């Protein structure tokens, strides 16, 4: 029998498949379609201290084998997530959820994480450090090892839950940032967030998304993600959650061979709402074909 269980930062999960933040809402849109308890976990919509509407529309652009989004962290704010979204989620998901947190200052991160730390449903805190630091000239926290370490330390100080730092690929050296997070006490890292991209409408000569640029995701970025997961997994001892363009069971295996302990699926959920369920159902077949008895044994198995 194919053993799909993995252990992510001390928590056993059924399988390594985790819908990525921003593509799965707070779960219940998908719970109308299938029993989401088949998932290893899922990472909920990026949550901030205050409610956010996000960026103006259009926020979406089609690309070859991918898409650009500039949603801009639309969410109801952590207090309403805890009082409204999590109780709704509890009715359709009985496992630990990964709380995805964003902030624009260190205080934002600690405020949000402190509150989510008290939620029984939350298994892990996935801390998105791709947002601009309003006190740091607008540079993303995730583009400097010092800032990344600062966020990690601050968040670790307010929570007992495992902290996974979500890294941006829009940097010169992602390995140095991953190491800085590990040294600052991170329990894991997840990568890659979207790549900064842009499209221009040829007729109007204006950018397709109102915010000019946005995050590029989808199948097209898969090779970049595999490369970065491979480099980071070689350099750190903490678990790596791999993501970026994962679309099928074979992609999950490839991410794990590159060094991922668990694998997030993002944009694919938007084009096939059953993507995660389909991948989980297909994994045993692919494992058998490849002679894999247990997924946890192939983590970092690339020769």
């Amino acid at each position, binding site marked *: 029998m194919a053993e799909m269980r993995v252990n992510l930062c001390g928590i056993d999960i059924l399988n390594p498949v985790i819908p990525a933040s921003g593509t799965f809402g707070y779960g219940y849109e998908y719970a109308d379609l299938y029993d989401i308890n088949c998932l290893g976990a899922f990472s909920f919509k990026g949550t901030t201290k205050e409610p956010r*509407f996000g960026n103006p529309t*259009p926020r*979406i652009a*089609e690309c070859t*084998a991918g*898409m650009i989004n500039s949603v801009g962290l639309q969410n109801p704010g952590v207090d309403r997530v805890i009082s409204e979204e999590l109780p709704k989620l509890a009715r359709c998901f009985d496992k630990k959820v990964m709380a995805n947190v964003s902030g624009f200052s260190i205080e934002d991160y600690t405020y949000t994480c402190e509150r989510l730390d008290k939620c029984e449903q939350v298994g892990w805190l996935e801390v998105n450090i791709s947002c601009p630091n309003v006190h740091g000239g607008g540079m993303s926290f995730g583009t400097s090892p010092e800032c990344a370490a600062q966020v990690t330390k601050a968040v670790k100080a307010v929570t007992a839950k495992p902290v996974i730092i979500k890294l941006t690929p829009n940097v010169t050296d992602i390995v140095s940032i991953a190491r800085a997070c590990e040294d600052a006490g991170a329990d894991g890292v997840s990568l890659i967030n979207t790549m900064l991209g842009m499209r221009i409408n040829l007729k109007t000569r204006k950018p397709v998304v109102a915010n000019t640029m946005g995050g590029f995701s989808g*199948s097209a970025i898969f090779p970049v993600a595999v490369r970065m997961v491979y480099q980071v997994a070689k350099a750190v001892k903490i678990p790596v959650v791999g993501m970026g363009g994962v679309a099928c069971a074979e992609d999950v295996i490839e991410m794990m061979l590159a060094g991922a302990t668990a694998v997030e699926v993002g944009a694919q*959920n938007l084009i*096939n*709402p059953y993507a995660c369920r389909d991948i989980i159902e297909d994994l045993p077949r692919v494992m058998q074909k490849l002679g894999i008895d247990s997924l946890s044994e192939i983590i970092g198995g690339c020769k």
Partner: protein
Amino acid sequence: MKQSDFKIIKNTPLTRDVYEMTLEGDTSAITAAGQFVNIKIDGLYLRRPISVCDAESDRLIIIYKVVGKGTRIMSELGEGVSLDILTGLGNGYDLDKSGDKPLLIGGGVGVPPLYNLAKRLIAQGKNASVILGFNTEAEIFYAQQFKALGCDVTVTTADGSYGVKGFVTDAMDKDYSYIYTCGPEPMLKAVYARCNSGGQFSFEERMGCGFGACMGCSCKTVTGCKRICKDGPVLGKEEILWQK
């Protein structure tokens, strides 16, 4: 919402760049006029959201204008081709508020969703009038089909080549109990300004998923953030906040 395969029965042009596609498949998830479907097209990443013109038993009719790569590919698909479609998306129009004399106002490719709406209103014994707005005579479609349903139909053309010269608002001098409308945003705005009853307005926005997960198509309303794909595309007149 339902994901299923549909087979193309017919795919023919109604005008130079507006096509009518008839498909065969499971339409059971389509529960209201004004809902839309989201179509997977080979070679493209995101699905293409298209409003439902009519759905009955196993037949689905959509009308689309060729405006880009996706709709270009759609226009070239032949009979028998199978398409992966998400159906039953969006809220659709609420018929209960129509009163006895609802006025339906459509502009360009905003016309199609009003067809099934008119059909449903007439089936309820309502006296439905329709104003269909186009730029020019060559772009007119479906006026006959609305007449065949038993609607009182007024056509406007911006250049005056057919019917009332001007915009749909130039034909709004009639007695109506309620307004249902779909069309380009400037038209919706003009109808909103002239409308002296309650009404429902169907909006368009670029979408990621089409089923409420990605927040790609959010808009601000009087009652808070709404997703055009899930909480819309139809908004009540009293909810609308004009942004742009």
